[in-house]
């Protein structure tokens, strides 16, 4: 079973939930797919045993062959290439590596150049197999790296995926193909707004989902009311506690400190399993 932990709004506690869920189990695979800001390793502290570079291809000009016909700049949907008179300009942060420019260049004046998109690191913590992707600073396109991280999934095992905030391509790429999506939210208008957007995505993807309300005892009741009205299961509520916030700030994990919470996260995983079976 593959469980993704997403949120829409950032900072609601995705990583906290994903990490505690993983540590409440005996054996799981843990994938941190928030490649722009990966933080799960701070809490799981895995021993990294393997590292590999994920490449990304950008065009490189072979000046002698170019006749400045501008076709490359015309076919680039992201305006990453500009040709002004006899100057060929390239803006790497806009490039999506679609290959159109070097595939279509009539002079064969463009070749592909390999760049580092990011790295994938693999390691172990007890029986947990840990994998995360880290987008290289200055690179902007996260989905291809997320896709590579997800290729590490072992079929048939229990897998937990920590997802990036938001509802656009990085979130979709990470949630796609999972058996269940846990949406972590907070009881504020921001939390509710972004939860509604995230639900829109998981419904579009046809993925069953449930909600975790973090800091449930502050803010208002609108998230709870919304879930009740729409028959959305609230699978766990976590209070705002100084103790929990302090653990988080130091990279410590709740279930390692508190048996009661270990039990709660175990039950959460069990509830998800039952829902997926149905």
């Amino acid at each position, binding site marked *: 079973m593959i469980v993704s932990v997403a949120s829409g709004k950032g900072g609601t506690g995705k990583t906290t939930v994903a990490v505690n869920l993983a540590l409440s189990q005996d054996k799981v695979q843990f994938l941190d797919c928030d490649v722009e800001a990966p933080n799960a390793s701070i809490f799981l502290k895995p021993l990294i045993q393997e590292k590999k570079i994920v490449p990304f291809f950008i065009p490189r000009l072979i000046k002698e062959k170019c006749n400045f016909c501008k076709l490359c700049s015309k076919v680039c949907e992201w305006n990453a290439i500009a040709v002004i008179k006899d100057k060929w300009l390239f803006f790497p942060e806009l490039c999506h590596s679609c290959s159109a420019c070097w595939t279509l260049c009539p002079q064969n004046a463009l070749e592909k150049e390999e760049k580092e998109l990011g790295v994938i690191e693999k390691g172990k913590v007890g029986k947990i197999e840990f994998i995360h992707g880290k987008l290289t600073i200055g690179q902007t396109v996260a989905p291809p790296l997320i896709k590579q991280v997800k290729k590490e999934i072992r079929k048939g095992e229990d897998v937990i995926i920590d997802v990036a905030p938001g509802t*656009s391509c990085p979130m979709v790429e990470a949630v796609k193909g999972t058996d269940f999506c846990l949406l972590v939210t907070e009881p504020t208008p921001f939390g509710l707004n972004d939860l509604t957007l995230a639900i829109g995505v998981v419904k579009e993807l046809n993925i069953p989902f449930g909600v975790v309300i973090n800091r449930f005892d502050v803010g208002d009741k609108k998230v709870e009311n919304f879930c009740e009205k729409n028959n959305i299961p609230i699978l766990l509520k976590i209070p705002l506690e100084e103790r929990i916030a302090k653990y988080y700030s130091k990279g410590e994990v709740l279930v390692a400190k508190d048996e009661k919470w270990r039990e709660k996260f175990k039950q959460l995983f069990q509830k998800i399993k039952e829902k997926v079976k149905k």
Partner: protein
Amino acid sequence: MKTLTVISGKGGTGKTSLVASFASFFNNKVMVDCDVDAANLHLLLHPEIKKSFNFKGGKLPIIDKDRCSQCGKCIEVCQFDAIDKDFRVDPLSCEGCSLCARICPEKAIKMEEKITGYWYISDTKYGPLVHARLGIGEGNSGKLVTQVRNTAEEVAQEKGLNLIIIDGSPGIGCPVVASLTGADLALIVTEPTLSGVSDLERIGGVCDHFGIQWVVCINKFDINLDNTKRIEKECYLHGVQVVGKIPFDTSFIEALVRGKSLAEYSTSKTTQQIKDMWNRIFNILNV
């Protein structure tokens, strides 16, 4: 004209709450919500939409089965594995690069423009707001951010306003880089947690990479004073100014559930600290 972009790396550090408070401190500005896939600033600024525009942010290939000879060229060139062996397009994988349509020898593929979001020019009691809404699960948020940012510049020029304040999105990817483009200063809002520290290093690295000056606000600084000291020290060593330290204060949430910024809701000490921080930023911006 000057542009301030507020970003964080890590989500939920308080960007939007701070931007909404800044809104009430200075008049001659345009506000922009560049967190286009999970926009929240409108929930505090209550805009009245004046103009609404369609965002044609994507194209999707339509394969004409009658013309298609199933040569497989399109599948071969697609870098996003968006066309399967039965020549069906997966819209969630497709990036809309059009290469398949351009390369098809039978000219069997047409690209259809999709409306993938909307952007708006609105009025608020604190001045104009340019904001957007990306369609569910749509990509190309960077393009929409650029659209929103350019529109804000036009609005500022038209109305003779000399400052643009951008509320950015978390992360370090396309939309973040698009919201940083052309910024005179980035305010990075962080928190004294190990995640906050790690993400601050990454987003600070992005600002350095693109040559953008940045300053730091440590929000909820009192939840871990050791980490706060560590951030201050790192910033000092890096030559980066910490322009404000804001305490953990549940009145942020009280204000938020009432649809207000903290500055609007309360005249507390925290509000004063936000105002002091704003004054420091304002001086650095030299508007």
